[in-house]
């Protein structure tokens, strides 16, 4: 029996050989994004998993110009790159991209991101959302969902994990009135590609927040990243929405499965299934999903 033919076009974007964990949702998503963007771009990357697993000196997985400065300043660094290209007259041919994790984007780099939006820079910013500080050891971020256990929001005798809901950064981004905001998911390849393509055709600040499952951070088998990501979307926990100039223009309809289907396979939520008190939290999470479903008309 001959081995199946493996067709993989090596583009000038994000190349194989990096050190991401097996099953890393972010690595797959970045590959999809970079294949869609093509080689005529410059990438500014925050400190975080993507930076660390792709550029241990003297190696680099980037076939395009790429710069990493600090944790919280990619939006500002990208603004500077954009301003330089504008001055050089090269902005029309080169796309300026920024990548940040959810901690870098929702928490420590929030001011810089808002500044980039408000100043109208021609930058496409990707928030790679794995819902905690995974690179530093799974600490809670502003993007950690309600009831998820992390190393700084652990479940315990008097705790059910994270006690606050996830910060709604896409809505905050949209409130800036920027031309394009979208949520996407690694698990929905075609949808992600379509959103990247659409964003590339728009000028100005654009924000795409990509749901990227994390096997070691969430606690599930590496082979299940696509499945887990799909369940998040299909239960309403991670609505896939597009905003143009501050208005919702398109949503992805979902199957509306119960949230337990998404939660039960993950270590970060297992405390919810072990005690009666834990199980009593589940309706609160279903409520969050139901609110999303109603707000965006996900199941109509």
């Amino acid at each position, binding site marked *: 029996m001959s081995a199946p033919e493996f067709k993989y076009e090596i583009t000038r974007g994000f190349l194989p050989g990096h050190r991401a964990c097996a099953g890393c949702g972010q690595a797959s998503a970045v590959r999809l994004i970079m294949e869609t963007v093509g080689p005529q771009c410059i990438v500014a990357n925050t400190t975080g998993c993507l930076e660390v697993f792709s*550029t241990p000196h003297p190696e680099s997985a980037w076939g395009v110009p790429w710069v990493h400065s600090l944790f919280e300043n990619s*939006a500002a*660094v990208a603004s*500077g790159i954009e301003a330089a290209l504008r001055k050089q007259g090269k902005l029309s041919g080169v796309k300026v991209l920024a990548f940040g994790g959810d901690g870098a984007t929702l928490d420590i780099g929030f001011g810089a991101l808002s*500044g980039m939006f408000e100043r109208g820079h021609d930058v496409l910013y990707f928030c790679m959302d794995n819902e905690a500080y995974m690179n530093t050891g799974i600490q809670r971020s502003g993007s950690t969902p309600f009831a998820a256990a992390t190393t700084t929001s652990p479940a315990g005798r008097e705790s059910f994990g994270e006690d606050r809901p996830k910060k709604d950064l896409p809505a905050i981004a949209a409130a800036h009135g920027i031309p394009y905001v979208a949520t996407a998911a690694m698990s929905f390849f075609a949808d992600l590609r379509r959103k990247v393509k659409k964003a590339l055709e728009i000028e100005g600040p654009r924000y795409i927040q990509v749901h990227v499952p994390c096997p070691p951070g969430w606690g599930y088998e590496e082979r299940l990243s696509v499945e887990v990501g799909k369940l998040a979307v299909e239960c309403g926990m991670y609505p896939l929405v597009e905003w143009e100039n501050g208005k919702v223009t398109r949503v992805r309809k979902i199957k509306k499965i119960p949230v337990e289907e998404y939660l039960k396979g993950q270590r970060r939520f297992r405390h919810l299934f072990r005690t009666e008190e834990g199980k009593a939290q589940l309706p609160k999470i279903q409520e969050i999903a139901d609110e999303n479903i109603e707000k965006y008309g996900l199941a109509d």
Partner: protein
Amino acid sequence: MRKMIEGSRAVAEAVGLCRPDVISAYPITPQTHIVEDLSQMVADGDIDAQYVRVESEHSAASVCLGAVAAGSRAYSATTSQGLMLMAEVLYNIAGMRLPLVITGVNRALSAPLSIWNDHQDTMALRDTGWLQLYAENSQEVLDMHIQAYKISEDDRVLLPVMVCMDGYVLTHTYESVDMPTQEEVDAFLPRYDPLYKLDPDDPYTLGAFADPSLYQEMRYEIQQDALGSKAVIKEAARDFKASFGRWMGDVLDPYQCDDAETIFIGLGTVVGTLKEWVDVKRGQGEKVGALKLRCFRPFPLEELREALGNAKRVVVVEKAVGVGAYGIVAAEVRAALYGQANMPPVTCAMAGLGGRDITFETFEEMLKRAQAGESDFFAGMRAELLEAS
């Protein structure tokens, strides 16, 4: 062309003559007229630059970082709290070997809140990898910016330069300056043409992380190039003199030091006052001299040893306190002289903090107490406040 302008204006015009592609600054915490003047020059089309109005100094420095990485010349100015907020990015810029010039306007740090002059802000950033030059007057600060870009972008250096100027005393003072023409500056300062930049047609990865097998050598290289930049700073001062006919020192600038028994060391505008006072003392037959420490990073170790070798006494006019230890400059001067034959005693006279005037009386007090053998003290204190507490 000679003109009577504010110190901030002199800097803005000098920066404009250096043709920055990207300027980024934050308005307060606090700011000076430098960036307001540059904004107006951009608004009037007098300089062709992108002006990025950011939401913080952290982002101002980050925008400059991105712009330089993309192959453009950039500029920012800030002071005090703003410099502190930039600190993380300043280390990063130096570590990434990105040439950049910013003006570090010297003002005190909070708390208590003070917008007035001293040197605690830039001194706190002395180990960032940035080269630090301190200007005495408007002409020097103007000329220093033009030299700073040349030094920073030199392939032998590739380190950012902070031009330090005293807040209010220099930024808000009107002085007569000789403003060079665009042609003169263009002839002295070539267009920025980096070895490496972010370019899709020739992609590089900038800012990769280094594990313990690599990091130390990278710091070593920065250290070597920072030390080596002293030669480039001297060269820039000489070339500048050849082009513009002006000389205000290179790493040091001695005044009446050759036969001086007591040499006062100062940085920035206090040197002007010191020179006046030295003239008065010389008139009274006292052999005092003034030594301007024009370049604090790299630290001019050998030059200081030579300049101070024959003095009987050295007094450092210290405008930054290394709280819990010693005056920052004095500690380094002492270290430079340590082990030298006939090492003169070095007195650390802390003064001028938070905008307190340093006058002839302050120098007299410093001299008297140094002669009496005091080594570390605050000069120009209000005794009644201390008694009250």
